[in-house]
């Protein structure tokens, strides 16, 4: 009932009237030559951002030495990864990733539904608060959880022992469960942010029809809501699962003491902990993983092919919420519990610790503001803030613009090459960050001398755009999947130009998703270290580089101060964004 076969999209794209206008308008409006040029340009941009660094890595995987060194082509890298040990580690990694993706997705869907589709009290505030952990550097939440849930003196275990008289700990963060939990701490808010606007943009009339036809609330949720969300859900699953395979910090911090190995720890070791970094091994292993991940993308294409998921139509888009009655306090309690466990506990530790000389030693004589003073007096920190802000603002905007164009073409046109650009935009997500960082280094440094990218702030910007593109395309793809074609047609029929249609329909209706994508990308840039450390130059340090230096020198408390400041910035961004959404919706 809900999944209908698409009417031929070619009708829309191919038979659209040729419109006069500037070159850009024509390029994307139907003039086949200009369209061809536009597509070629897009392929070139994506090619430079994604294929070029990956090609350098591919060279690295097939050559006995990294670029620029004498050596020979061989398959030793690929041969050396074919071991039983690696197979076990891979199975372990996939297991961990599934174990975190499935519960994360379930909880995120539930939270998104609560916030966007129900009348749960304070849901506006909860929407901002429950996403906060995502924006804190993982090393900080890892430290906080280490303090809360270590088996010997963790706060949770101390309270447990005191309350029950037990001698055994209640939780042990240094375990499989700990690794998965720490990953969930990031996956849930990410997936929630990724999905919440898709839930919000859904026309409730479909759900209402289902209810009127006698379906229960649960059946409606399962058969209407979830199925309509299929593009967003499958994209979310894939983004989260693939990131889970590439996870690193959680496994290193909590897995290593428990003897848990994942693929990325192996890659990390082959680069950082051998006498000579074995780039051939690291890149070969990464490409093998990438091949496996691509099967998932193909699966998603196959699943979504020829189906329509339009929920935002011309028939009076009326976002409304489901009235839960007394149940709304249950959903509220769930959100509060989630907020308490994932936000108050770890971030409370960081906040408390930032006012004491040392984390975990909360005595009166240890009270201090020295960490705040040190951060505010650190000129390098302020320089990094300026650099990161510029890079974040430019990078997130450019990434989202690129993502919106790629998503538009791949979802809403039948242009030749649309699948190619869609796949190209996926590529950076499938390569572990630390390897891709090396790919950017090789790619930019090896450019001919007159191209001034390496050693400038442009190298960082381009790397950030490439790294952010997968998320921006997925966010926008989900949004465009929901917009009905009749809106575009209607606009055109009423005499709007292609550009006007784009602006008033495709941008105006998809902008909440654009804004969420922008925030995700912006903070992705703020946290990015693997490429930054290899591409920054003197004077262009980013916040992540400064954080790494402070952490390396044992200034965990100062890192927390900066982490908390980043979190404040998120609250401001999200508050502005959500107020804007509210004002827009009230005008509709």
């Amino acid at each position, binding site marked *: 009932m809900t999944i209908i076969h698409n009417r031929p999209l070619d009708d829309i794209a191919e038979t659209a009237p040729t419109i006069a206008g500037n070159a850009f308008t024509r390029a994307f409006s139907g003039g086949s030559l200009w369209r061809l040029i536009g597509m070629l340009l897009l392929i070139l941009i994506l090619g430079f951002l994604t294929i070029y660094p990956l090609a350098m890595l591919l060279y690295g995987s097939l050559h006995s030495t*990294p*670029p*620029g*060194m004498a050596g020979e082509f061989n398959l030793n890298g690929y041969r050396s990864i074919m071991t039983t040990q690696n197979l076990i580690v891979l199975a372990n990694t996939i297991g961990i990733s599934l174990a975190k993706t499935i519960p994360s997705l379930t909880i995120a869907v539930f939270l998104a539904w609560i916030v966007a589709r129900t009348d749960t009290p304070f849901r506006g505030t909860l929407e901002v608060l429950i996403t906060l952990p995502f924006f804190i550097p993982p090393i900080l939440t890892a*430290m906080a959880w*280490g*303090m809360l849930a*270590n088996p*010997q*003196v963790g706060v949770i275990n101390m309270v447990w022992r005191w309350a029950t008289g037990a001698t055994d700990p209640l939780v042990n963060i*240094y375990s499989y469960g700990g690794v998965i939990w720490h990953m969930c701490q990031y996956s849930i808010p990410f997936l929630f942010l990724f999905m919440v606007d898709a839930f919000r943009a859904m026309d409730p009339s479909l759900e209402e029809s289902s209810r009127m036809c006698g379906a229960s609330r649960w059946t409606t949720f399962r058969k209407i809501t979830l199925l309509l969300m299929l593009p967003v859900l499958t994209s979310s699953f894939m983004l989260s699962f693939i990131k889970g395979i590439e996870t690193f910090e959680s496994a*290193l*911090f909590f897995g*290593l*003491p428990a003897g848990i190995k994942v693929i990325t720890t192996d890659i990390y*070791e082959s*680069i*950082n*902990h*051998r*006498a*000579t*970094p074995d780039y051939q091994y690291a890149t070969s292993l990464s490409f093998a993983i990438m091949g496996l991940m691509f099967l998932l993308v193909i699966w998603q294409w196959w699943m979504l092919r020829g189906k329509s998921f339009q929920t935002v139509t011309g028939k009076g888009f009326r976002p409304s919420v489901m009235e839960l009655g007394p149940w709304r306090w249950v959903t509220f309690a769930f959100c509060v519990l989630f907020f308490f466990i994932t936000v108050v506990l770890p971030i409370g530790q960081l906040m408390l610790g930032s006012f004491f*000389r*040392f*984390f*975990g*030693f909360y005595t009166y004589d*240890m009270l201090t503001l020295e960490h705040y003073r040190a951060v505010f007096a650190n000129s390098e920190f302020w320089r990094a803030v300026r650099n990161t802000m510029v890079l974040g603002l430019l990078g997130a905007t450019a990434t989202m613009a690129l993502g919106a164009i790629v998503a538009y073409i791949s979802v809403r046109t039948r242009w030749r090459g649309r699948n190619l650009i869609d796949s190209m935009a996926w590529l950076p997500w499938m390569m572990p960050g630390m390897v891709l960082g*090396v790919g950017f*280094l*090789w790619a930019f*440094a*090896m*450019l001919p*001398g007159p191209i001034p990218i*390496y*050693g400038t702030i442009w190298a960082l910007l381009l790397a950030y755009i490439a790294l952010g593109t997968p998320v921006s395309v997925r966010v926008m793809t989900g949004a465009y999947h929901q917009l009905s074609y009749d809106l575009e047609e209607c606009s055109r029929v009423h005499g709007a130009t292609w550009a006007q249609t784009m602006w008033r329909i495709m941008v105006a209706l998809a902008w909440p998703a654009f804004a969420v994508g922008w925030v995700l990308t912006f903070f992705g840039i703020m946290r990015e270290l693997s490429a930054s*450390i*290899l591409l*920054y*130059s*003197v*004077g262009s340090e980013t916040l992540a*580089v400064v954080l*790494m*230096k*402070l*952490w*390396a*020198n*044992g*200034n*965990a408390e100062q890192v927390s101060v900066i982490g908390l400041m980043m979190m404040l910035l998120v609250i401001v961004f999200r508050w502005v964004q959500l107020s804007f959404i509210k004002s827009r919706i009230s005008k509709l």
Partner: protein
Amino acid sequence: MTTNTSMTSFIQKWSRRFFMAAAGSLAISAAAGMPAFAQDAEWQKVIEAGKKEGTLVLYTALVGQPSTKQIAEAFTKQYGISVEVLEARASEIRERVRVEQAAGRFAADVMFTSEGQTMLYDKEDKSVDPLPATPNSQKIGDKFKLKVPMASVMTIPYGIMINTGLVKPADEPKSWKDIADPKWQGKILSDDPRAIGAGYLWFFSTYDKIGEDYVKKVASQKLVFTRDQRESQRRTARGEYSIYMPVIMTDFSDLKGLPVKFIIPEEGVPYVLYGNVMLKKAPHPNAAKLYLDFMQGPVVQKIYAGLGYGPVLPGMTEGLPADVKAISEAKLYGTTDTTRQNEMLAKSKDIFK
């Protein structure tokens, strides 16, 4: 096996000593053959040229150390040459230098790195130039004059850290051998010896000097591994473990006020020797020479000694507080040998499964 290793080690030590002696004699005779005023005049030319270059680009693998900035400022004050510092971890910075040079981008002048990394820069990447003779390079201790083209600057010492709330004074470990006592089973947090880092440095030194049996005994202590030096110190301070090893001894001053104690083992401290290398086609070669010299001079040597690092210039620990002096002067126990890295890593992985 152990005998072979000891023999190899003996030969290596002997050849190293022989080389040192030969190099030392050569340097002395060369210096003696050249009138002092001629040397001074030459060096004066370097100073003038360095000042004209005006800038020095330093890459350092010693990340986040406030001393780097302090030293750079002192250098600028003395010569009027500004220092641009780029910091990254050892493998990252090494790859940057290699790729930059391969692409014909000679951006950096000097790299501050370890002895082991220098060997790789020199032999594998071929990215460093031979060391220039500078006035201070003649004055450093003989054992710090190396075969590899690195101007030694200081040693980073590693020892044992205990939680004073969990370890009674009578039970405190005094030597590396005490770590193997079964009473510490399950109570030791250790830097991972299976990957290049502090844990591996401890493994390398004690395997060579005490023997495989000892290392195997320690392996049976159910060590818990970590790779984050600073966070591990805090974890031990908070009472998760009684002992953390090996700890960077110079961190003791950062943890003052916490219930921890840093112990210099009787045998001595495993160490990493840090120094400067001159990178190929350095854009500011004279400024680089001045910096190399400055780092081996008394100003910088006193800065490092004051932080507890081992200076390479004799007589730099005079007047230091007793606790700093003890660490700075701690007997050097052993360090790693890059040529045996793969063999020893495999051994460590085998023992600490």
